[in-house]
């Protein structure tokens, strides 16, 4: 079944088509949610919120460009709003030094998707949010600063620290091997 057929079915509020859309894209969108929420229950909540928003605003999709990209954008926006609601974004300075977890991998080439998700989940919430937005979802620092109500320089420094922390995880595990 083509995306167009699925979309038109969902626009009629047909539950069967909504299920088809969910089955087809929930895996990819769950990955998006897991990037932002290490806790599986929160990620699942975000996924449900994302699909609700998708079904509500599906008529806005103009069939131009990638449907998958549009879905991801909606879910990312929902995830960001949820993070703001959870009042975590502005607390990253405190949290950035609070977490101390262990991660083991052999080398970057051998990293599997689940390993990467685990590494991202180890980042403090502020690092993780900025890293996800900039690297994974293509936001600019200006957009990040506007969305999270922080300065652009803060966004840049958070990104640098996130990269350093990820690099350190990889290096330390390599050395230990």
């Amino acid at each position: 079944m083509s995306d167009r057929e699925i979309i038109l079915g969902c626009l009629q509020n047909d539950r069967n088509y909504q299920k088809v859309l969910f089955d087809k894209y929930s895996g990819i969108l769950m990955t998006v949610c897991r990037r932002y929420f290490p806790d599986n229950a929160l990620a699942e909540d975000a996924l449900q919120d994302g699909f609700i928003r998708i079904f509500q605003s599906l008529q806005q999709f103009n069939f131009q460009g990638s449907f998958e990209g549009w879905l991801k954008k909606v879910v990312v926006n929902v995830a960001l709003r949820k993070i703001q609601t959870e009042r975590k974004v502005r607390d990253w300075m405190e949290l950035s030094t609070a977490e101390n977890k262990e991660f083991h991998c052999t080398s970057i080439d051998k990293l599997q998707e689940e390993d990467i998700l685990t590494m991202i989940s180890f980042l403090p919430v502020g690092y993780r949010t900025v890293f996800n937005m900039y690297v994974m979802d293509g936001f600019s620092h200006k957009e990040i600063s506007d969305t999270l109500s922080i300065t652009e320089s803060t966004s840049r420094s958070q990104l640098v620290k996130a990269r350093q922390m990820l690099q350190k995880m990889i290096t330390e595990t390599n050395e230990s091997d």
Partner: protein
Amino acid sequence: MDQFFKDKLDHYQSKVPQSAWQGLEARLVEEQGKSKPYLWIILIALVLLTLGYLFYADFFAEKEKEPVELENNAIASIPAIPKSYQVNYQNKVENGSESMLDLIDESLPLNRSGIGRSNVNAMETNTIHYVASDFYESISVTENLKSDRSITASPEILPYKANIDRNRDLKLTWPDINNHCYSKPNHYFFAELNAGVDFPFQKLGIQHFASENQQYLTERAGTEFGTVSYNLNLLAGYMHPTGLLAKTGIQYAQLNEKFYFVKQSMIKIQTQITIDTMFKEDGSYIIHRDTTTIEVMGEEKLTTNNRFSMVDVPLILGYRYAGSNFGLEFNAGLIFNVMNYSSGRIFDEKIEPTYYGADGNGYFSPFKTRVGLSFYAGVRYMTGFYGSTQFYIEPNLRYYFNSFSNSDYPLSQKYLVMGISSGMKYFF
């Protein structure tokens, strides 16, 4: 590393728990239940069905009644009615010089002093209506129709028109809708004063396609909610004997919305003044004041009542159906917006809460000062009220064809307004 991470995760499908769809489905059902437009549509459909049933019941109830013949000079058995009741009847002319005329309209004021005999005095009339198809022509007549007669009538035949010919036989026939008890036949010019409550449903769309506008639309849609609105209008019009009518006038309408946004992790600076009083052994004391500022983190709730205040000129066409004890009026037309005055707060393109209109500082002006045409449709249920005045209620809807936003603004913003109005109509 960035590209490696991105490539790895871009199309990676995580496992989704089985319960996720069940939870989502339950929430979808819940969301549909919350959907206010459907409630309004159901409510209005119920009102229309009720009115339709009244129309249907009334129409067939009249058809089923056989004409009742009354004996001349019979004793009246008319129940007491608090005010004098006027019956219009048609008197067939069969003799005299007015042979070209078929029918004469007369008015009979009935004396309702009590149950029992009712004296009916035919009044002198100065108008004869010559009926030819749908064409009415009035000429003068000098004939004096004054006479004394009595009628017998039961309550259910009162709305019926009495046909009395020269040999004083009285028959009851179908009522003429224009001679109905609550709408006098010659009162075709009218004025009406309406007031109504409305509920606006906002429809946002993308006016200029760009990826960032999608996010902007999503954010705006989540922070604005329609609230109870109202309208007030004064109309004047003319109703043709066939029931067709036209009316126009002036209307003030206000669409209300609420902007609600919770700004998380806001830092508020509070000043704390500490005053310590230290007593010495000799009884003297020292007062020590310490002023410190602390940062308190919390959330800020932003709530603003947004409004569009509009001056309009409605142009409405309608058709009135009159039943035996109620009337229905089907109205539809266009409303021309003369002036739109907007004020409030919404997200600007940077998704920052920003004031606009009279509440703003001038740089953010997303809305037009004239919003063009809107379509109006409504069904009115009327009942007699007092003399030439009618009282009514009218479920209605308005749809604005044009966007309220300026052409250079990223989003289009249209409205469907559903409401119910009530008022009084006066026939001159």
